Every structure is written in structure tokens, then in C-alpha cells.
């Protein structure tokens, strides 16, 4: 199923400089009971964002109107833990299209790529620069350029390149997904299956 195409994204960003943010924080398990992919953004970072009585926690970044944008910048080892794709859905549904971190957990990274959210891994030094730039000026803009595989702090022009394999890059640019591809090679899969040891 096709998803949004991703090309060049220019946006302000929301900083979350905490390390090892796990998918239970991104979307707690009690919000995984839906049978459709709707409404997950409301519960993004639920327990960091809201008190038990559902009032917003004033000190959490998503409740601070100073910070906004389509880019979420997280601390090292973002998305560890559970394989729940709901975490990526919640990030997308909230309005983010790109997550930046100096290190991503594997499954989370793959889930993002599969739904059209671009995970951009930068060096720890560049991550620090991004955090500093956002905190110094929350209106500062960041450009994520997928064709060129660069991320740029537009105020200073400081940039870094990032990795993405060419297959996934092509998918993101065109809004293709893996099932489209796999469906197209089904006869080859069926032939392969006939000769397996198990």
C-alpha cells in the first residue's frame, strides 16, 4: 500500500534529548488494543505527556507551544524494546515525518521506513549541535534532503550526510512499499518454497 512520498522536508523540530527512549514510552501497551490504525497520535508519549488525571504535564516538550514541527529529535538508542509498529504510527499520526537520533533500535527503524517516516541517524556530535540549535532558537529550521541524503541546520549551513539503502530510498521517494515488490516476484517465491529443507 503506497504511503506518503518523502523528498525534501524543511521544518522546525521538537527536541527530546533523553537516551534509550523505548517504544513503551512512545506508546504504552494499554493503547495497543485498537483493530484499526487510527488515533495513535493522541497517546504518543502518553505517560510523559499527561498526568494520571489526563491533564497535560507542563514540563514535557510536546506540551510546550514553543516547540513544534515535523521533525522529532531524540536521544541515543531511540525506539528500543517492543516491536510494536504502533510506536511509528503514533509518531506519524501526531504529525512527525522524520525522526533524528544518533542511534536507532533496529526494529523501530525498519517500522518507520515501512510506513514512510524517515529515520535519520547522525553523529553524536551533530546530534548535540541540533539540540543546541533548537534550544537556542526553537524557530530554527532543519532541512532533511532525501535525494541528497543530507541533513542541514539552515541557520548556519552546517550539514551531515546520512545512510539509507538505495532500495528503501527509492521506496520512500516514490511511496512504494515492500508488498508491492514481493507480490511481483510471487512465482519465484513459490518455486523457492518447493525446495526448502523444512
Amino acid at each position, binding site marked *: *500500500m503506497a504511503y506518503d512520498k518523502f523528498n525534501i522536508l524543511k521544518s522546525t523540530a521538537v527536541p527530546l*534529548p*533523553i*537516551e*534509550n527512549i*523505548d517504544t*513503551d*514510552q512512545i506508546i*504504552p*501497551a*494499554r493503547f*495497543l*488494543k*485498537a*483493530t*484499526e*490504525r487510527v488515533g495513535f497520535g493522541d497517546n504518543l508519549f502518553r*505517560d510523559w505527556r499527561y498526568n*494520571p488525571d489526563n491533564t497535560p504535564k507542563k514540563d514535557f516538550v510536546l506540551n510546550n507551544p514553543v516547540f513544534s514541527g515535523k521533525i522529532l529529535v531524540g*536521544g*541515543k*538508542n531511540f525506539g*528500543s*524494546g*517492543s*516491536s*510494536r*509498529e*504502533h510506536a*511509528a504510527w503514533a509518531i506519524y499520526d501526531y504529525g512527525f515525518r522524520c525522526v533524528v537520533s544518533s*542511534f*536507532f*533500535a*533496529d*526494529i523501530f527503524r*525498519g*517500522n518507520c521506513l*515501512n*510506513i514512510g517516516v524517515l529515520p535519520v541517524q547522525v553523529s553524536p556530535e551533530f546530534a548535540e549541535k541540533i539540540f543546541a540549535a533548537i534550544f537556542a532558537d526553537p524557530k530554527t529550521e532543519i532541512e532533511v534532503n532525501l535525494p541528497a541524503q543530507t541533513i542541514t541546520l539552515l541557520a548556519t549551513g552546517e550539514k551531515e550526510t546520512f545512510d539509507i*539503502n*538505495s*532500495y*528503501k530510498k527509492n521506496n520512500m521517494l516514490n511511496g512504494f*512499499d*515492500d*508488498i508491492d*515488490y*514481493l*507480490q511481483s*516476484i*510471487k512465482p*519465484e*517465491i*513459490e518455486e*523457492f*518454497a518447493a525446495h*526448502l*529443507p*523444512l
Partner: protein
Amino acid sequence: MSKTLFDKVWDTHVVRKIEGGPDVLFIDRHLIHEVTSPVAFLGLKSRGIKVLYPNRTFATADHNTPTINQHLPVADPLSANQLKALESNSNEYGISYWGLGHQKNGIVHVVGPEYGITQPGATIVCGDSHTSTHGAFGAIAFGIGTSEVEMVLATQCIMQPKPKKMRININGKLGVGVTPKDVALFIISQLTTSGATGYFVEYAGDVFENMSMEGRMTVCNLSIEMGARGGMIAPDETTINYVKGREFTPKSEAWDKALAYYKTLKTDADAVFDKELTFDGSAIEPMITYGTNPGMGMGISHDIPDAAHAEGGAATYAKSLGYMGFHEGDSMIGKPVDFVFVGSCTNGRIEDFRAFTSLVKGKHKAANVTAWLVPGSHIVEAQIKEEGLLDILTEAGFELRQPGCSACLAMNDDKVPAGKYAVSTSNRNFEGRQGPGSRTMLASPLVAAAAAVTGKVTDPRTLIEELV
């Protein structure tokens, strides 16, 4: 060319390689449950495609299910709806469905091996990160997201870049009171929660060779907690004896063919790993976690490290200890315990209940502790009764609940209240994992037993010595 165990299984399943991209990997067995599959089925419906190999797919309900009164309708309407969706999707697409009340129902990573769905050298996926459990059999098993669940339902394939390879060697004799869970928590404490990200791990050495299949499953289950996609152990006589004759294990001629394949499943002597680590098994203590990720663990007799010696930035560390209500330099011994949970895909097997029971035998549950003992499956539940463990547990003031994931992720009613402390044999101590505001200390069934009878964190070795 020399190959690792991982290479052999992976390469056997590559349908095609994409230049500059992932491999198309064929999946032998696909396990599904109620939480991560409904949206995948919706995707199939909207594309108008069928499940390619329904007989390679198995469905069980576990994440949402109650662990008492399973004969009654599920009270939570959202949970009930999700369970109903799994049942109707399974029926519609011709998939074996082991729902609540079915004799084969239980935690997906417990029942898969019990019925022989898990086989050496197989590729196994499930929309659950603890799918790494099945690596205990020398399978490549890993957790996937819902888009990938849809992919596997539709085409029995997944698109994955081949991970790097790591081997973790542990030799030596484990000390008294040291269990497979402690070995795993020790490894994670050394590597941190991201130390094996990007790798598939092979566990090697006599510590693993001497483990039962249950112990190996506990170790491989926790591979994801150091960031590894999965972990595996080469199949040997212990493995073959376990799988032989189970319901979905190949039979007669197919068994002979399978056996010949299983015997090829070991790392060649001169095969090279991207990373290799070695630890001394005799140095491992009973472990406990003090923070909010599984890497924040230590020998139970140690004090909580100060920030300078901890992984992660000082702010993250302070947030974590603040959540737990602990301080740098605290001893864990004597910390208060309100709840004890024994169960989950990590420690919900018969050996775990044997260990727990051995320590509580002749003692009594502490009055301040609420204990939830949740078998991983009906087979485990039946074994607990047949082996007389239930009588001992009842005598000691414990009750047995019905199978399910339960308080490991608290999607059902088994929630630890805010601010309360739980010693848990499960796999994650993340903030709120066992209920909003809950505080989790991960440990082995023996450490859980020691906490359950003393009402506080206690080194199980002190109680074992009493017994001797």
C-alpha cells in the same frame, strides 16, 4: 567458504538478493497474536489478497487475555474486540487459531516450541520482539512490525538487510543460585541495551551447552534487550531430544531429512564473526535490575553505581533512578517489594516454576507481597499440577493463575499500581511497563521466590544455604 550457524540458516532462506538493498528472506513459520495482526489483515483485505501459506501461520491469543476466569467472556470490550478480530481473521484465511479456552492456547513463544512449530534451522517471525526466544533451537527468529506481518501473510517473505554477526562465549561453572536468567541479565548489563544493535548473536560455550531447552529459551528471549535482532544456540542432542515427536515436528521420512539438515547447523571452526566477546560463567552472580532498562542490572550483592560509571548521560540516569525512587550507592538488598510476578515468555516455563517452588517450599508468602504466578501455557500449568508443585505452592500461600502474557506488559487487568515495586521474572523494566507508574526490578525465579517469602529484595543464596 566457512560459515557461521547464522549464515547457514540465513543463506538457505534467501529467495533473492537486491543490489544495494535487503535480502528477500523466506519465512518457514509465522506466529501471530491479537495485538499486532489486525491492521495487517486489514491491509490484506484492502489489497484483496489472500494468505499465501495458511499452514505456515499459527495464531494464539496471549497479550490481552485475562489470567483468571478464562471461561467467562472477556470483560474489557477493547480486548474482547481484538480477540474476536484474531479469531475471525484466522477463520477467514484458514489459519490454525488457538484462542482462549483452547487446550493449545498460551504465550506464543511458549506454545510454539511445545508443539514443535519451532524447529532447528527454521526461519520464524512474529509481531513481537521476543520472537528471539526460538533461536534457542538454532532457528533464525526475530520480531517484526505490523507492515512486515502483512508482508509475511501475503508472500511468506520479509525484506531484511543481513545483520552483522556476534558470538558471545561463556564457559565455566555457574555458581549456586545462578540461573539462565542471570546469565542473560549479566550479558545485557555488560553490553547495554544497544550493545548488540545491528547484530545477530550466537551464544557458545559450555554454560549454554549445559542448559536445558527452557534455559536456552530464556537466554535467547532476552537477546532483543541488548538490541540484537535475535540470538541463537547451535542445536545438539538436547535440542533434538526436545523437538522429536512433537505435533508439528516432521515425521518419518520428513524427519530423516530434517535430522540430516539439523546436523549441519553449527558454526564452522574457522568462521569469522564481526564481533566476539568472552565472559567467565563462574563470575556471574544472581542479578537484579535497579533502573528503567534491562541493561541497568548488577549482581544482587552490589550497590547501585554512580552516574560516572553508568551507561547513558547523567540526566537520563538521574531520570531513571528518580523514577525508581533509588539513589546512587544504594544496596538493593532489603529494598521493599510489593508484587512478585513469575511468568512471561522469558520465565513462564516448567523449569522456572520448579526453581521458584524449590525455594518457597516449607516457607510462607510474606504478608506484604501480592504474588502472581502465571504459567506460559496449559502444558506448563498441567506439569505444575502433575509434579506436585501446586501443592507446595498452595501450602506456602501462593495461587496459580491461567496462562497469558499477564503482568509482563499489563495489557490485561494484571497491573502493578503506581509507585509500587515488583520483582518480576519478565523481560522489561521500562517506565510504566507493568502498569502506569509501576516500578519493576527484573530478576530470576529464584530471586523472585526470595522476595516473595521475605517481602523484600533478598539474595536467594542466603536462603539456599539455609536449606542445605
